[in-house]
């Protein structure tokens, strides 16, 4: 996830799911919202709507209340009760005009309420406003998970992703590896060449990490000069190979600010080909111990061990 990645939301078309039992209303909204550059999805009943909301992940839902079968309140309840859909903002679009209905809709989690027949301009501005709010909330949520200096995921994001990855490993015995990288003698780079040079080293390593790892890998800045890489579907041997490639790529870089000084990295890897025999937090701890071993072994190296065996002997690779 990079800075430029965050900005793309402004340029993508928002997907809006319209839920109404009357086809007229879908056609009408299609015409009324034509200028808004939205991708409109239509559902004519509640069950279909819930399925579409899960599968298509719309940015906004426009929901009619008065529908046969599952009514709008029920749809709203389901949307808000599911982890997959509870964050999607919902504007209720209804012929029901009583304050009690409006209160119920807001209590159930609707962000806005438009009464039918709707005024064209009012509809447009309310849709725009809801989408803008949703964008801001998404952006804040993303920012909270992004490291400002490098644009990588931060520690908070790592904790979430690591919990997901280890759960996958436990459930399906899928291979999984974790690497912790620590730039060698980073303090001395800062002290000798100044903090801008230190920041440049961090940013460069972050870019390299992103470039050299695979699509499914999750690179994060752990804090300071420490980085972690979650490697799903990857056993310890393949993980060590990836990390060695990263280590070598960093060592090969020439630095305009300090041509006489290369930057190197030490790395600890702990991986499993099968279900791990240690807890997620012990896994991180044990990976850190591998890193420590790499540092003690002379730095600029990758140390690897297993998380799925009693025999967790140290091995140095590279």
């Amino acid at each position: 996830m990079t800075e430029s990645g965050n900005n793309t939301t402004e340029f993508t078309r928002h997907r809006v799911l319209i839920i109404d039992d009357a086809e007229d209303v879908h056609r009408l909204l299609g015409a009324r919202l034509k200028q808004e550059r939205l991708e409109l999805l239509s559902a004519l009943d509640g069950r279909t709507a819930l399925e579409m909301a899960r599968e298509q992940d719309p940015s906004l839902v426009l929901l009619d209340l008065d529908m046969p079968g599952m009514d709008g309140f029920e749809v709203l309840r389901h949307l808000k009760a599911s982890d997959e859909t509870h964050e999607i903002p919902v504007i209720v679009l209804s012929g029901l005009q009583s304050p009690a209905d409006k209160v119920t809709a807001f209590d159930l989690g609707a962000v806005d309420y438009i009464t039918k027949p709707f005024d064209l301009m009012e509809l447009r501005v309310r849709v725009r406003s809801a989408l803008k709010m949703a964008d801001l909330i998404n952006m804040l949520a993303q920012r909270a998970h992004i490291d400002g200096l490098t644009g990588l995921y931060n520690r908070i994001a790592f904790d979430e992703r690591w919990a997901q990855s280890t759960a996958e490993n436990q459930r399906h015995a899928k291979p999984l590896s974790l690497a912790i990288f620590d730039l060698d003698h980073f303090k001395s780079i800062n002290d000798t060449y100044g903090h801008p040079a230190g920041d440049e080293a961090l940013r460069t390593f972050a870019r390299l990490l992103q470039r050299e790892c695979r699509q499914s890998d999750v690179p994060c800045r752990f804090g300071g000069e420490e980085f972690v890489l979650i490697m799903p579907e990857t056993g310890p041997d393949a993980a060590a190979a990836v990390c060695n490639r990263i280590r070598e790529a960093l060592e090969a870089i020439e630095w305009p600010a300090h041509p006489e000084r290369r930057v190197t990295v030490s790395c600890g890897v702990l991986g499993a080909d099968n279900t791990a025999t240690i807890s997620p937090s012990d896994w991180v701890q044990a990976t850190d111990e591998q890193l420590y071993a790499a540092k003690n072994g002379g730095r600029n190296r990758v140390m690897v061990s297993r998380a799925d065996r009693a025999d967790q002997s140290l091995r140095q690779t590279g």
Partner: protein
Amino acid sequence: MAFGWGVQMSNPESFGPPIRSEFAGDPDMLELVEEFVRELPGRAASLSASYDQGEIESVTRLTHQLSGACGGYGFGEIGEVARDLECRLKKMGSAAELLTVREQVDELVSMCSRVVV
């Protein structure tokens, strides 16, 4: 055609002035309004037929659709009549009570058959 709607539809003027869409001048809406207007007499006929058969569910559903849509296509006046009718229909316990809304159904069907773009 127990109530004679067919006569109204073939000659709307004789039962009241034509009803125009408020959005007739909106180029974005023109095509949609035209389509809606084309379909409306058919819907009115279905409503009338359902009413004659005493099919309360079908009458309620068709009225609900009209109440939701008419306003949006610039026929607010028809939408209001449909909404009032819908309210009364929803409070009914049996199809026998349909007789109490005959006048409103007549009015709604008549209005639907008088629409023009």
